[in-house]
Structure formats: structure tokens, C-alpha cells
């Protein structure tokens, strides 16, 4: 009796599944989603979005698991091979390469072949492409740039710089006023990677920067030395706060809030804690990192967070529908607005939230980054190289005289890592 029930249930399930295939809505079965959006605001955003998808597909049994963002980075290796969900969050570019190469991510080029996605998401397509195929979809990205204390600039009679000379002249005046130009906390290394990204992209251009991070250019080359020479000008001026090697990026925020430092080269996620610390939008402003070598096209860092379908997923059909849903213009507008993720939508048809920084960032990325959009130092370079290199960058910021030793070490690491 029981076996008969089971068979008929199975038959019904198959029938339902085939019906589900016929119409886009009315998906059935289970959909397991793993998220790394463990902070309260992004978590609530994601849960709200998933409940909307649930409403559209009442017969689908959605099961969401939120894992702590740091723990996720190690757990993903296990669950992708052992107990794969149907949808998982991750990051674009080189950070997804190990899983693509191990055959653990599903090829979703078919989704991108649809012009509704392929055209509207063109700006991030490169970051999702490995070996000519796409391996997931982005759901948000955010600009990097210089966030600065407008009130301090006004007080000292400074205006937003656009060239390297202006940048240094501004900085000298800030130092003369007894403050530091930039706050930074390099305890966890990646913040130094942000400075290197910008200095190198402005000194040598996007293509050279990518050649360096993908192992085609050498760290001991004259181009890279020029980048470090430019950086050293700032270090020798005393532009950065002291003892930055002991602080995390959050611990470096108070220097700017208290007015001991005037600016912070950071991603847009720094705006929320700065506002929480009491800085108003009148005090806080943003400018694009200045030109260094004239004629080099400006390129920007804009890290992209992504959704992927694991190769071992059970319900790939529902997962594909979910990915389409996530990148649709309305959902993109909704989840990226100021009340939710507070970042930039990836779909060109979406609208950007009325937020000073998001609007400026969107403007910058869509009209003033002809050089290209990079992901970030530790996402564009292989993880192992990123670690060794960022350690070298931190050492350089503390002991600029060690540069030759550091560059030799990075060359050796490069030879070993890119084989």
C-alpha cells in the first residue's frame, strides 16, 4: 500500500515537474539557497527578496540558509562538492575560478544568451566570464573612490583634486594644518590592495594592471617601480595615519570621524558606518581617484557579488528562474536601494536610489571609467598571489626602503604561483 502511494506520489511529482517546465511560473520541488549575507541589513533584504520569489512560485519549497560571511569562505569548498544547494552566493572574477576549474559551478551561458540579461548586464559580463562562458549572475556592485571630509576641505580652502599635482598640493596643506591626508587600516592587508589598484591603474592603465595580476607582467618592471615611486611620495610626506598596520578598516574610521584625517580611499560600504558615527552628508563627500599619468584612461574598482548554481544542484531549473528573477530590473532596483543593500544595481534598466554617493558612483562607473572596471586586488589576482603581494604592500607602506627586497620576493612568488 505504502509503495503504491509512493509511486503515485512520484508520478505526480514528475507530472508536476514537466508542467512546471512548460510555464515559467509554477515551479515545484525544493530550492535550497545558501547565502553569505550575514549582516543584518543584507540578510533582511535577501530574505524579503526570496519571499517575493516564493509568492510567485507558491508550489516551490524554498529553504534558505544564511552562513556567516567569513565562515562561508571556507565552507563553500565543502558544500559545493558534498552537499550542494541549488543556488549559492559568491564573488566574481578570479575568486570563482577555483570552483569553475574544479567543475563545481554550472555553466549559465544560456541565461546570458537572452538579450534581457546579456545586454542589460553587459557591464559585468566580463567579470562573470571564464573560458568564454558565464558561470553565474551578479546581484550587486559598488564603487570605490576617495571619501573625504568636505568641512575640512572647506576650512582649508581646498577643492576636489583632479590631477596628481593637485592631490599632493591638497595633501600638503592638510599636513601643514596638523592633520593626516588619509586614514587606512592595513591589519587585514586588503585595504593596501585598494591603494595599489588605483595607483597602478592610474600610473600604467587598466591593461597593464590586469597583466600584472594575471602574471603576464613582472613586479620588478619599471612600470611597477613607477607606481611605487608615486606611492612613496605620499608616504614620505606623511600622508597616511601612523600605525595603520595595527588597525582594521573599521578601526581606522574614527580618525576620519574625529577629523584627524581628511580622506579615506574605500568602497561605498564605508559610507554607512561614517554616517552612523555622526557625519552628515554636508560633511562627507566623494571624488574619483585623480589622474596620475596624463592620457591613461581611468579605470575603477567595483567589486561584484554574485549568485551561482552549483554543478551538483538538484533543482537547476528553479535555480535558473531564481537567477533571472534576481537580475530583473525591478528586483535590482529594490534590493540595491538605500534601505536595503545601499549599492548599485547591475541591470542597466534599474534605477539607482536617490543617495548622493550611489548617484555619484553610478555616474562615475557609467560615464567616467573608459579604462574598464576591475574587481579588486584580491579578486583579480589568484588568492595565493594576492596574499603574498598584499603583505608586501603593507610592508612597503611601513618600510618603504624595503621595496627592492619586496619586489624580488613577489617576482619569485609569481614564478611559482602562475604555472
Amino acid at each position, binding site marked *: 500500500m505504502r509503495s503504491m502511494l509512493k509511486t503515485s506520489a512520484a508520478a505526480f511529482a514528475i507530472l508536476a515537474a514537466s508542467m512546471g517546465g512548460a510555464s515559467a511560473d509554477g515551479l515545484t520541488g525544493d530550492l535550497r539557497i545558501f547565502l553569505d549575507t550575514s549582516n543584518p541589513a543584507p540578510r533582511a533584504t535577501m530574505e524579503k527578496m526570496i519571499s517575493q520569489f516564493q509568492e510567485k512560485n507558491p508550489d516551490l519549497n524554498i529553504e534558505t540558509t544564511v552562513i556567516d560571511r*567569513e565562515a562561508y*569562505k*571556507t565552507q563553500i*569548498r565543502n558544500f*559545493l*562538492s558534498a552537499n550542494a544547494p541549488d543556488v549559492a552566493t559568491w564573488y566574481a572574477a578570479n575568486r570563482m575560478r*577555483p*570552483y569553475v*576549474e*574544479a567543475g*563545481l559551478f554550472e555553466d549559465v551561458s544560456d541565461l546570458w544568451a537572452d538579450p534581457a540579461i546579456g545586454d542589460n548586464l553587459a557591464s559585468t559580463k566580463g567579470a562573470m566570464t571564464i573560458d568564454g562562458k558565464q558561470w553565474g549572475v551578479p546581484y550587486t556592485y559598488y564603487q570605490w573612490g576617495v571619501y573625504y571630509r568636505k568641512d575640512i576641505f572647506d576650512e582649508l580652502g581646498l577643492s576636489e583634486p583632479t590631477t596628481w599635482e593637485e592631490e599632493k598640493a591638497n595633501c600638503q596643506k592638510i599636513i601643514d594644518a596638523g592633520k593626516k591626508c588619509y586614514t587606512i587600516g*592595513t*591589519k*587585514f*592587508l586588503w585595504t593596501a590592495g585598494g591603494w595599489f589598484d588605483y595607483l597602478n591603474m592610474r600610473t600604467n592603465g587598466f591593461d597593464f594592471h590586469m597583466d600584472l595580476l594575471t602574471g603576464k607582467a613582472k613586479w620588478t618592471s619599471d612600470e611597477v617601480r613607477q607606481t611605487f615611486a608615486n606611492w612613496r611620495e605620499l608616504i614620505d610626506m606623511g600622508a597616511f595615519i*601612523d*600605525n595603520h*598596520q*595595527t588597525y582594521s578598516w573599521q578601526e581606522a574610521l574614527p580618525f576620519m570621524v574625529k577629523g584627524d584625517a581628511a580622506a579615506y580611499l574605500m568602497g561605498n560600504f564605508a559610507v554607512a558606518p561614517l554616517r552612523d558615527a555622526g557625519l552628515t552628508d554636508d560633511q562627507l563627500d566623494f571624488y574619483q581617484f585623480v589622474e596620475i599619468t596624463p592620457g591613461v584612461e581611468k579605470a575603477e574598482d567595483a567589486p561584484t557579488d554574485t549568485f551561482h548554481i552549483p554543478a551538483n544542484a538538484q533543482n537547476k531549473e528553479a535555480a535558473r528562474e531564481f537567477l533571472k528573477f534576481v537580475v530583473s530590473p525591478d528586483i535590482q532596483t529594490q534590493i540595491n536601494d538605500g534601505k536595503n543593500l545601499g549599492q548599485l544595481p547591475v541591470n542597466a534598466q534599474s534605477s539607482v536610489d536617490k543617495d548622493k554617493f550611489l548617484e555619484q558612483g553610478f555616474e562615475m562607473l557609467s560615464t567616467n571609467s573608459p579604462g574598464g572596471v576591475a574587481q579588486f586586488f*584580491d579578486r583579480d589576482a589568484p*588568492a*595565493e598571489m*594576492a*596574499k603574498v603581494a598584499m*603583505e*608586501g604592500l*603593507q*610592508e612597503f607602506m*611601513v618600510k618603504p626602503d624595503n621595496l627592492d627586497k619586496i619586489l624580488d*620576493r613577489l617576482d619569485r612568488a609569481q614564478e*611559482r604561483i602562475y604555472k
Partner: protein
Amino acid sequence: MAQASVEGTRQSSWWHRNQQQLTPWLFLAPGILFFLFYVIFPIFQSFNLSLYQWDGLGAAEYVGVSNYEELYWDEAFYTSLKNNVIWLVLYLAAIPAGLFIALFLNQTVTGIRVYKSLFFFPFVISQVVVGLVFTWFYDPTFGILNVVLGSVGLPPMNVLGDENWVTVGIIIAGLWPQTAYCMILYLTGLNAVDPEQIEAGRLDGAKGWRMLWYIIVPQLRPATFIAFVVTIIGALRSFDLISVMTNGGPFGSSRVLSFYMFEVALSEYGFRMGYGASIAVVLFLIMLAFIAYFLWSMYKEEKAR
């Protein structure tokens, strides 16, 4: 029926004959099995893994001893090794410190239990909390340390940001709970000190340092031995304080072998399982040398009795 009872008596008599030898093994069996499966077997697995190149995802590739070859050329490995030695040497300061605090607390004064608890307190709280407290203490901008240094006319220092000081700074943080641990060991040891010997010593005119050195300390030998063992092992497995206080930095100068192994094999930018395993093997061999020495000296002690 008859046959069965014969069988039964024979079996029970065999059990009866060997009961004395078998019972301890039966009791030990679960422990031995777990020990083999979770300790001994993984040790050999690590040895094996250290000969492979493996990212934890794809197929492992046999590379012979090339991981060890790379270790030989790896500056970060020597930094870690050097720091391990510094840890081993400086961490031993917990033993005399613990002894003196124990001597100080080994008196009958009102409220002595409260003082003992206060001294023991750092051992009870988590190492993570110890690390955080000391990080704030050392903070170059907001910390108390530089206020204290300034008040006696010394220049400010950034302990955790200076590659020459960072390891010492972390060890001092580690000594805080470790001293409490040694203190407890000595307090129990002091309970067992023979009052007659002290009396005899006193009659012979010994007091102060001579009393301590010739009468008390020799009687504390077992406590000293245990304190030595736990301190050495504690120094070699130092990890949590480094992770909390500096994350191995600045530029990798506060790493020790266990932290470097974690970084290489399991952290965000790592996943080189084979290389991590080769570091683990080196650390294991160092520990093995100490453990062998401890076992040997314990064996000698037992035999002498």
C-alpha cells in the same frame, strides 16, 4: 542440553582465567579506538598529504618532497620557526612567575581566597578575550600603554605594529593566563610540602632564599615538571592570541608554525593542503622531540621509585 552446559563452563572458565589481563583492555578499548582513529591515523594522513599538491577540491597531485623543498626556501617559514623558538624560551617565564605568586598567596590572611581567585581569573577567561584586552592595552593611539610610557618620559611605541616587538608583545599577553595556570599547580604543590622538613631546616638556620632553594623547590619537583610540560606544549601550540591580536602581521612577522599552517591550508587565501601538511609535519617533529623527552624522564622517575 548437557553439551551446552559443558560449552558454557568451558567458556566461562576461559574468561575466568584471563579476566585479570582482559578487563583493563576492555575498558581501554573505546579510548584506544578513538585515539587510533582521530589522532594516530590523521598523523600518518598528514605525512602522506605533505607529499601532494592539493587545493581541497580537485584531484591531488603527487609531487614528492617538493613541498619540503619549498619550505626550505620560504622566508615566512623561517620567521615562523624563529618565533616558535622565542615563544618556547620566553613562555617559560610563566614557571618562576607562577611559583612566586603561589608563594605569595600561600599564607593565611583574611580574604586570601578572593586574592587567589583574582590571580586565577585570567586562566578562566577565553584566550580571545585576553587577546582583545591586550590589543586595546597596546593600541598606539588610544591604549593605556603609551599613556604609562609617556608619564615616565618614554617615547610611545606601537608594540603590535613593530616587527621587532610584536612577538614579545603577544607572548606577554599569553604569559598572563599561563602564569595563573602555573600558580595553581604550585599552590597545590605547596600543600604537599612537608612541614617537618621546614622545621628541620629552620633549626639548621635556613631562611629566605636558602630555605626556598634547598628545602621548598626540591619538594615541588612534580609540580615543576607538570608546569614545564604544559608551558612547553602551550608555547608550541600558540595560535589563538596571534590570530586575534595581529592576524600574523605586520607583514607576517608574528607568525608561528601553527598559525602559518592554518594560513596556508585553511584561511581565505590559502587552500594549499599539501604545503600546510608539510608545515604540520615539521611542527609535529619538534613536538615529538619534547614529548619523547618528557616520556623518557617520566619513565626514569617511575623506575627510580
